[in-house]
């Protein structure tokens, strides 16, 4: 019995010794290209994802969902496909934002939306459309440095940029503001 145990123990020892020195992945630092490639790969990805956040008093504060979210360690950010964001100000008033693509920087709570961006005031139906917008989920503000269009019923308001405070529901649009208020048909 002792004769057979010794070779097994020896074999195990050799395997352990080998794994210490032989690393199939190799030292990333040894090959920058590999390290670079690893950085560009998401660490994790999830599909049909939704996250809720509640205020200290237990009220629902915001919901963030996406068809797909890929998390990158290096940037501490998630790249989102079809992101949708719902902001609640605790008085049963809410805004919803959506876009084709987005990047969510977790630590800063910054959501950058790109392509077919929509920001809708769920109470008035006022809809802001643009191609790029940055949402600060901590302060509940939104900023856009590219042309924006606000529509409500048939009235249209255009400008070359805007900042919005979702809590006070105020949008400051400038420069080059143009508006058309269409008369409701009698």
């Amino acid at each position, binding site marked *: 019995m002792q004769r057979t145990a010794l070779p097994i123990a020896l074999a195990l020892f050799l395997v352990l010794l080998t794994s210490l020195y032989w690393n199939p992945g190799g030292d990333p630092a040894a090959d920058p290209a590999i390290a670079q490639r690893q950085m560009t790969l998401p660490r994790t990805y999830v599909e049909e994802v939704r996250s809720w956040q509640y205020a200290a008093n237990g009220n629902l504060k915001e919901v963030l969902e996406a068809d797909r979210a890929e998390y990158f360690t290096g940037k501490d950010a998630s790249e989102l496909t079809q992101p949708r964001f719902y902001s609640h100000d605790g008085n049963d008033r809410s805004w919803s934002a959506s876009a084709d693509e987005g990047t969510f920087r977790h630590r800063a709570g910054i959501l950058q939306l790109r392509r077919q961006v929509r920001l809708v005031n769920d109470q008035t139906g006022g809809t802001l459309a643009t191609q790029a917008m940055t949402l600060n989920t901590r302060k509940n503000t939104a900023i856009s440095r590219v042309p924006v269009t606000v529509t409500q019923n048939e009235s249209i308001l255009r400008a070359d940029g805007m900042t919005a405070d979702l809590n006070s529901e*105020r949008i400051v649009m400038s420069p080059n503001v143009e508006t058309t208020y269409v008369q409701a048909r009698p």
Partner: protein
Amino acid sequence: LPEDRQEPIRITADKAVRDEKNGFTVYQGNVMMQQGTLRIDATKVTVFHSDKEADRIKAEGSPAHMREQPQADKGLMHARAEVIEYFKAEERVLLKRNASVEQDGSRVAGDSIEYFIGQQLIRADSSASDSGRVEVVIPASALPNSQQNGDQSTPSTPSDNSAEEEPGGTTDGQ
């Protein structure tokens, strides 16, 4: 023109602050508002919009300037004041502080003037606290021929410092 009321209202400005909760939008910086032949130039314009449409517009300037073609065969009407409020549903314009309305040489000035667009009627007031009075100027050319040639009777002075006039000349003193 009467059909102006159905025209869309177009506004251009440097900046706009839209308050969705309280239903108004403030335009600032080189503000120009146009609705058909009606045009307002001001430094600040506030549009109060209920759900459906813009129903009240307040223009402020030093002064704010409104002009409109009341009828095809009449000259442009120019209205100036520090505050011009336009009540669309009532087709009424209220001018406040250093208000004046001019058309075809006639001029009405006072502290506040109400201009009823539909009836083409102007009502001017001066505040009792101030020594100012309503001033009405009607060029002779605007008077009907009988009054131009012979009857030079001075229109009766309105008792309460207000006068109503139809743009284009004749004053109905009270």
